[in-house]
């Protein structure tokens, strides 16, 4: 399912590009609240592996989800993820732990299409849309599928 604001044809949409486990992922800039440097989280008890804990974001308790772990990307040769992309999804805010932020790119909204249902390789769950831009694969994340708290709501 495509977010409503990127489904209109021929409009350019801006995507924030960042890296996790040496791979590039994208999110519409409209969903990103801010980018933060690292602070050590307080771990949550009996949490899923991707849930790294909570930090204080100016008085709000912000959960941190490690993107590479959430997408079950191979751990080998990973650079330590130390940048937090804070995003807002239906009133909830979550911090996504990534290796680094790369760039902001603009792609025509019409070039985005739903990910193929069956694929030997990623994209798997957590990907909202894919596109080919400048010969490269653009994978736009789906926050709803990534975060444990949001998933509980859906259930």
């Amino acid at each position: 399912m495509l977010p409503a604001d990127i489904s209109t044809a021929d409009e350019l949409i801006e995507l924030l590009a960042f890296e996790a486990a040496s791979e590039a992922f994208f999110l519409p800039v409209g969903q990103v609240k801010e980018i933060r440097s690292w602070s050590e989280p307080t771990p949550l008890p009996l949490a899923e592996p991707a849930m790294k804990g909570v930090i204080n974001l100016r008085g709000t308790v912000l959960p941190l989800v490690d993107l590479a772990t959430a997408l079950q990307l191979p751990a080998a040769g990973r650079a330590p993820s130390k940048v937090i992309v804070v995003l807002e999804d239906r009133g909830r805010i979550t911090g996504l732990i990534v290796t680094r932020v790369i760039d902001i790119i603009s792609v025509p909204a019409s070039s985005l299409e739903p990910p193929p249902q069956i694929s030997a390789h990623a994209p798997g769950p957590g990907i909202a849309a894919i596109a080919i831009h400048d010969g490269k694969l653009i994978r736009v994340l789906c926050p709803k599928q990534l975060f444990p708290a949001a998933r509980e709501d859906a259930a």
Partner: protein
Amino acid sequence: MNNTPDPLDQIRAGFFVECEDLLESLTDAIAAPDFSGGGEAVNIAFRAVHSIKGGASSFAMTALADFAHGLENHLEELRSGARSATPAMLGDLMRAVDHLAKLITAAKSGAVLPNDTGPLAQLNAALNRAAAPDQDGAPWDIRFRPSVELYQSGNEPLHLLNALSDLGACQISCDFSAIPCIAELDAESGWLAWHVILPSQTSETTIREVFDFVEDVCDLSIIRSHTPVPTPEVASGRPSAGPEAATMRVALERIDELMSLVGELVISQSMLVQILPKAAPHSPAVMAVEALGGLTRDLQEAVMAIRTQPIKPLFQRMGRIMREAATTLGKPAELICRGEATEVDRRIIERLAEPLTHMIRNAIDHGLEDPKTRAAAGKPESGALTLSASNRSGRVIIELSDDGGGIDRDKVHKIAVKRGLIAPDTTPTDAEVDALLFHPGFSTADAVSLMSGRGVGLDVVRTAITDLGGRISIQSTPGHGTSFTVSLPLTLAVMDAMVVRAGGQKFIIPLAAILETAAMNSASIVDDGFGSRLIRLRGRLSPVSDLAAMLGFGDDAQDGGIVILINDEDDNRTALRVDDVIEQRQVVVKALRENCGDVAGIASATILGDGRVALILDPGELITMANAPRPLREAS
């Protein structure tokens, strides 16, 4: 946030907020002592209904506007003095106000209520019953002077006055003027006279009947008084159009934001204290930061005071719920409210409405007997519910008691056995039986009733109260009624707590749940033979659980450290082993669930002086976790 709100919607929202205030002053006015006498209260009521009508018609809420218009007409008749209110009419008036409140709620949600003119028709009938004031609407003025023969014939004026009091709320005054000085006083003679003012609706014949046997041995005059019943001093002492304290309406979100900013300030201030060099305790910087600390605390209290408000509107709403339930179930009842001025955090008030509604319905449905049974037990047919609020040792106590039949413990016991909640051969104490009512799904109603038998039991009430950081308990005396006591924190924003260390992390334990702390030494520990450890504290053996291990932060077999005995509202206990107790302090409570979902054993979070998040434990859940079989994690 992404779409700008429709300005008309904002005005509409403002109108509904205003309606709540207007309903409050309307209910107050009708209950005021000078309402029946046609005093200022009638004007207040009239103006409130008039404003509701005005707003409703400008938003084209026809049903609401029409009803308000009808009600306004009735109040106008009272206001102009064309009619006067009788006590019986006040009940009908209240019901009309209840209906008005319902229409407002319906208009707010956009629902359409069936056109119900019942309440107005009733009110109309009541108005017509009350006769015009210039003639028989006036109260009775009775002057009664017994002669000496009355006393000699064995009559007693007190009995006569009591009989008059039974006819209605009368004002009795004694006239001593005839008593001579003591030298001339003939103790065998009668010197006293009484002046009685009786409400208008009693017939003259009824009054005459009281004096049937003494009419020829006293001076008696019974006339319609042409001066109205004097209104109590309270009402006239208050300037009706005096200056009111200026107020303004602020969105709750803004106050919450302010509160959270002040919380930040408290944290930043304590961070400053930690950073400052300890070596120079009297340096200007340290003194300035201390002054800042004082100001911050004052600011915090001031903001907290803004967040609190009297519990009265909630109690008034409960009055409406009670009347509705009483009518539906055919059990006449009245609600007596006490301590309505008690101030409670606005957020608590909001979340208290639902459990309290359920408790009121429950009290009428299950607490009160039907009128026949009550009459047979020598009680008035109309039941009495008492709802009171008070402040006690830093908490808000809300009590709801009924004068019904009390808990039928035999029945509760039987049902509990039948449902397998307790073993058949156990003999639980009265308190244990009463506590069974809070068991999930428990209901003593033989048939599912319309009011409270909706599959939600008192366990839902208890969950709602516990979520607010409160506790609920029950006391019952067979034949005399049942009373529920709810104890709540003053605010949801700040909590007294103990900071402990376990598994390398700092955790916060609410002080309200802590019974005792003790050093963990082998002398006090007993092995239960199944690999679990027990500790004897407060006269009982409680299981010892390692906090860090429970939460998945460490191994179980730790020795030493501190054990903290916690309990829940049913006095289930568990002892938590922690590495260290750090300090006892107030913490600012931060919501965790909205961003993180449910976290095992954790209720909420706070931010400590170093700016890091610390988790606030949920004692009830920890006790459940400790008493449950070993966590699945270890098995898998």
